[in-house]
């Protein structure tokens, strides 16, 4: 059974253009120029119960717009969306109780009061029974180490502390579907790791479906086996992250640390030279030849150290986007 079904979803906006300056303002006052922006342009996908899916795309690709359509904030221009059997834009009470949308750049916490006040308000709004509320809160407090934060004013919390409280506030009603839009935005590496681990634990404990966008590739690689790549409102890829890597980059990286510099021709015979900084060399080697190339390098060159690595996912994604824009 699919939890989320998106069928040819389209969302267009009317954007009004205005030149800077007084003259531009006057012209815009009398004659407005509008442009239709195709934020989401006919995407389709399904997500199963308990699945974690990464949603990747450059800024303005349409990720957040799609999430907003899924959470009922936006009316789709065309196409259909169902989540847990509900049509999100109808905003039925039972649907609003069954999912959460965490926006990394938006805050639901009551800014001037301690986070606990928001938790209590959410308990009332979502109608969470007292016992379940206490159980969930204790669990979230333990997982996210919230104890020292509960009585501090939200505006006095650090960005990382605030995001932890934000997540707790969003999950107190135990939603079955999580839409996470840049949940680790601006956080340091340690805080990012805590949030990632927490999302994974929540997903496993409640078998919740998660659709996650992030600019940090580590978030996606750590959490999602399946990814959706979107660019200019269109779905470019839907599938396994590993398969995308193998398809887009049919090579691995052979990183060599040499004892002394070697001739460029010797390096080229092993594979395509990606960088050569004297004693540090990176080669692109076809996947099928990786073992052989590594053995030859060890045998023929003065190698002090050698590693074989997958190309960084960032590069792969960049590659997918550049192909997309070439086709456009």
């Amino acid at each position, binding site marked *: 059974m699919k939890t989320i079904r998106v069928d040819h979803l389209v969302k267009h*906006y009317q954007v009004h253009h205005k030149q800077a300056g007084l003259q531009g303002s006057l012209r815009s006052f009398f004659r407005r120029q509008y442009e239709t922006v195709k934020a989401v342009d006919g995407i389709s996908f399904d997500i199963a119960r308990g699945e974690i899916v990464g949603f990747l795309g450059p800024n303005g690709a349409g990720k*957040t717009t799609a999430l*907003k359509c899924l*959470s*009922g*904030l*936006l*009316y789709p221009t065309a196409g259909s969306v169902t989540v847990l059997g509900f049509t999100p*834009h109808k*905003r039925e*009470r039972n649907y*609003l*109780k069954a999912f*959460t*949308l965490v*926006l*990394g*750049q*938006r*805050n*639901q916490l*009551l800014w*001037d*009061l301690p986070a606990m*006040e928001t938790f*209590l*308000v*959410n*308990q*009332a*709004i*979502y*109608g969470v029974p007292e016992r379940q509320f206490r159980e969930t809160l204790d669990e979230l407090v333990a997982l996210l180490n919230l104890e020292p934060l509960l009585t501090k004013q939200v505006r006095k919390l650090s960005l990382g502390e605030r995001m932890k409280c934000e997540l707790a506030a969003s999950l107190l009603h135990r939603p079955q579907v999580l839409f996470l*839009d840049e949940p680790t935005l601006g956080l340091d590496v340690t805080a990012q790791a805590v949030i990632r681990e927490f999302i994974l634990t929540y997903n496993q404990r409640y078998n919740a479906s998660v659709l996650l966008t992030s600019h940090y590739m580590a978030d996606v690689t750590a959490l999602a086996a399946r990814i959706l790549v979107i660019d200019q409102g269109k779905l470019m890829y839907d599938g396994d992250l590993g398969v995308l890597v193998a398809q887009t980059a049919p090579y691995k990286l052979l990183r060599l640390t040499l004892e002394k510099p070697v001739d460029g021709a010797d390096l080229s015979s092993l594979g395509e030279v990606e960088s050569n900084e004297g004693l540090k060399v990176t080669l692109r080697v076809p996947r099928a030849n990786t073992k052989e190339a590594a053995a030859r390098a060890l045998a023929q060159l003065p190698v002090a150290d050698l590693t074989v690595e997958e190309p960084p996912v960032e590069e792969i994604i960049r590659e997918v986007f550049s192909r997309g824009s070439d086709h456009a």
Partner: protein
Amino acid sequence: MRDLFRIYRALLQTAWARALEFRGQAGIWILSSIFPLVMMVVWLAIVDEAGPLIGWGRGDFISYYVGAALVHQLTFVWSVWQWDDDIRTGHLSVKLLKPLDPFHYLMTEQLGWKLFILVFLAPLVVVVAWLSPEISYSLTVEQFVAFALSVAAGFVLSMLMSSAFGVLGFWSTQVANLYSLWFGVGQFLSGWIAPLALFPAGIRQVAYMLPFRATMGFPMAILMGQLTRLEIGFGFAVTLGWCVVFLILYRILWRLGIRRYEAVGA
């Protein structure tokens, strides 16, 4: 209904906590109560010069405007600016994600401030009224209950009126200005500039049928013992009628407008 009661209790607690958090703002807010007293000074100057106006002497004007200062604080709401800001900046998204009509957030926020006014300003007005020989509100228990209910009804009507205008923000970014225009007309016809009893009969009859009187002139007329039972009943009927009109308008505009919401920013 029990759920809504629980939600209101929780939201009111936070609204109250926030009102207490901003002590400075609360102080300034209470100080703004003196604005109706400016009108009182103007009318007192006229009365001192020209003698009583249509039976209204010094004591009547002082009683009217001291009471009006409190009534204004209890019935005035600023939700339209909040609606406008929420829709224009996309802050509404956070409220829309929850299983509760955003109206209730604004309603409880206003109620939190009203509670604050009741606790800190109302006793002050009572003491001033009691100590001042020129102020007199000769009220029966029945009239006092009618006064309290009329203030509550005036607040609810203001809230609905403000929200019906506020959701126009889905179509326009000029809603706050539009409401300011409406509010300006409203101040004139509510009894703020002058007690409605002093208006020419024609204008007064029109003012009695409009929604603005409910926010000041009607409760004040009850407080000053100027209305018969029938007149009080008529005032409530007009207030209730406008509440229904603005509630329906709000609901229709909300349903149509929400389709246009763009959830900008993040």
